């Protein structure tokens, strides 16, 4: 086993092959089988694909619970995730063929739509897990969120000390930057990674302006302060990017998990309704 084998490559794409075989078999049966009347969920193939889909959804949801039990160990965990991803993707084909491409404003299509959204959010989740950790590492530059925040605090102190001997306006913008700069915020702020009118940004701009019109000894101190403020602004950008990556890696779970549970409910109602009004 390769050292850096990801869950996608687990055991030479074992689950990709299994899912591929399931998809190929489903498509083959769908093409070969000509039901009396149009393809739909009520033919023998429709019932068959529906049963496979139902079992898969139940199992995948169970996998979702299992793979969060980290005491399974890294290998076992990787196997569960790999199976979850590939069989989940195959469900898109199995479920769609089960519908016979018949859609309407009803509980059956609701279950299908929920399934598609759950799978789509899962695809995004896989993308996030593959893409963002690398970006996060690059963005942090060897630091952690904790050390970056400590650095911001230290810069605040240094700015304050420098500003003591400068004018009131400089003191005000430095104080504003110290007291009103926001790290993170609500869900949208975390996801967007942007803060409108950041006081530190304002401070940089204002001190730049003040430095231009000063030529005496104060100028050196202003330049030093500007350098500190710019470092702080750069750190804040990296912190916000870091928080954005974290949020992007988490946000899909707020779709994937609740909708999976809703899908289970819709699926039960779907099966119930089919046989209730047989």
């Amino acid at each position, binding site marked *: 086993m390769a050292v850096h084998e990801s869950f996608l490559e687990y055991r030479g794409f074992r689950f990709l092959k299994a899912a591929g075989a399931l998809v190929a078999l489903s498509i083959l049966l769908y093409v070969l089988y000509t039901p*009396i009347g149009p393809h739909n969920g009520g033919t023998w193939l429709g019932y068959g694909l529906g049963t496979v889909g139902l079992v898969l959804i139940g199992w995948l949801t169970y996998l979702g619970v299992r793979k969060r039990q980290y005491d399974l160990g890294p290998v076992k965990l990787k196997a569960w995730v790999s199976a979850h991803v590939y069989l989940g993707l195959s469900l898109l084909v199995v479920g769609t063929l089960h519908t016979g491409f018949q859609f309407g404003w009803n509980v059956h299509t609701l279950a299908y739509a929920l399934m598609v959204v759950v799978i789509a959010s899962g695809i995004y989740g896989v993308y996030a897990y593959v893409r963002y950790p690398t970006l996060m590492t690059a963005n942090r530059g060897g630091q952690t969120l904790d050390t970056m925040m400590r650095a911001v605090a230290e810069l605040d102190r240094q700015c304050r000390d420098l500003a003591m001997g400068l004018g*009131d306006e400089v003191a005000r913008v430095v104080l504003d930057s110290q007291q009103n700069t*926001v790290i993170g915020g609500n869900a949208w702020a975390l996801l967007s990674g942007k803060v409108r009118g950041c006081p530190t940004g304002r401070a940089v701009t204002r001190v730049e302006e003040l430095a231009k019109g000063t030529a005496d000894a104060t100028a050196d101190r202003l330049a030093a302060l500007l350098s500190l403020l710019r470092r702080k602004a750069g750190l804040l950008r990296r912190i916000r990017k870091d928080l954005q990556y974290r949020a992007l890696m988490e946000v899909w779970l707020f779709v994937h998990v609740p909708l999976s549970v809703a899908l289970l409910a819709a699926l039960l109602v779907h099966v119930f309704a089919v046989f*209730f*009004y047989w």
Partner: protein
Amino acid sequence: MKILVRYVTRRPRGNTVNRDELVEATELGIGRGAGNALHLSDIRIQYNHAVIHPAGPGHATIQALGDADLAVNGKPVRTAEVSPGDEIDVGPYRLRLLEPGEGHEVGVSAELVAPQSDDEERVRACARTSFAREMPGRRPIAWALVSAVLVLFLALPLYSFLAERPTVTSDAGLDPARMEAMHQRIAFDTVWTSGAISGPHRFTAENCTACHQDAFVMVRDSSCTACHQDIGHHADPAVAALVGGLAETRCATCHKEHEGPQAAVQDDQRSCTTCHANLKAEHPKTGLQDVWAFDPGKHPQFRPSVVTDGATGKVERLEVGGQVPLVERSNLVFPHSRHLKAEGIRGPDGTVKMQCSDCHTPSGGLFQPVSMEKNCQSCHAIKFDPASPARTVPHVAAEKALEVVRDHFNSIVLSGNYDDVTAPAVVRRRPGTEMKPEERAQALQWAAVKTGEAIDRLAGKSGCGGCHVVTKAGEGATATLAVAKLHVTDRWMPKGIFDHPSHDTMSCDSCHAAKTSQVATDVLLPGVQTCTACHGPQEAAAKVPSTCVTCHVFHQPGLPAMRPGPDGKTAAHPAPALAPTPASASR
């Protein structure tokens, strides 16, 4: 004036340490700037924040500079007179005026009461970095969604089902008011629909229980026959009960609903061939032949029902091109070939080139019956007296026709003035002239001879015998003619549907060999191979795809209606013919 400035530092344990400075000045500047006598080294203090003007022992006035913040005893002020005991807030510092003492008239103490918080703690405290904490919990979202699904898609539909019991249960049929009412109701259970209802049934679309009358039970045939009361059976009910496949077949096996706006009629050939491809093996006594598809070798040869005995009218099914010659004994004498001669035939007004449509008038998918009056008489008037070419006999029963003949010659005897030099003088006498008894006898004798000749003529080809099989009995004027009953078949293949108008791009003789048919015993029907030259089974790509129901119907019009038994099943009822079910008995 001597002013005491005291900097108070509070130790962690609560005790204080003072550092006193004695200043000689008329006023006391307060600020972060080094030039201030009361120097407060905090960035929250303005460079020159405020100034104290001593006003005598133990009294002073304090004045805020610029926009600096200043409060005395908790009240924001710009300028205030202060005395010992007042609490003066300057930024994070609390100032107090001291009692006059030795060596000073005015004293001021300053204590940092709101020190800068620890930077790291502050940064951490105001950071909101957890996305999960900023979102509503996944579990509450899940519960909300599950509740919505269960209420909207399970509880409310169930309520609709329980509240609205079946409304189409009687066989009273449907009236427009009830159809409208069924459509108007709010039905939550329509979210369970598996697809659009067919057009003819759309008015029941809001009323699931019109068909789905019991939970977890497939739609019963009785739901269908509640409205479709007179739909014909597929086979003789007594036979149908014996045929396993048919007895188990539900209406919905072929009539699939919720498949869109088109009518819910299943036209897949496999619906029929499931039974009919292997009928002989399953039911050796059946007279039906196996069929797989509409393809050569997979569909039996046509077996038209023809009259095989002209005397009794006996009808038998004979195969086209089979061992038994396909001959119909209809008692009609008619040569199609002579009528359809390419060069035309002699008509009353000259040569006529006849077309099929001259006699065969389309009617629906078939044709109107051919009749003497409409189609033959214009050429074939039944004349019997060459001296009176305008006189004809009507196309009626033979004895009535002969009465017309006898009356004709008798009336000539009575009236005289007959324009024929071969006739006796009495027959040619002037009208109104009396006849002598011997002349009367001579005239009647002539009439009898002429009547006999006319009857002979009628019996021959130029009379009735031209088209009918005629038998003459007796001789002379009292002879009688017997015309054999005609058995002209209306439909040779009554179990098949053939729509002539949809084949109007073809010529008639591409299927019917009428031009070469010299006798009326010919059955001018093509074999199945003529059809399969253009038509193929439903999966055919190079031919016109044709399924069983293209030419056949499932519900046979001549059979009793399909009525469900007490268990709601149709095809199994009525069961054995010896014991009719209440449903069939009531009909």
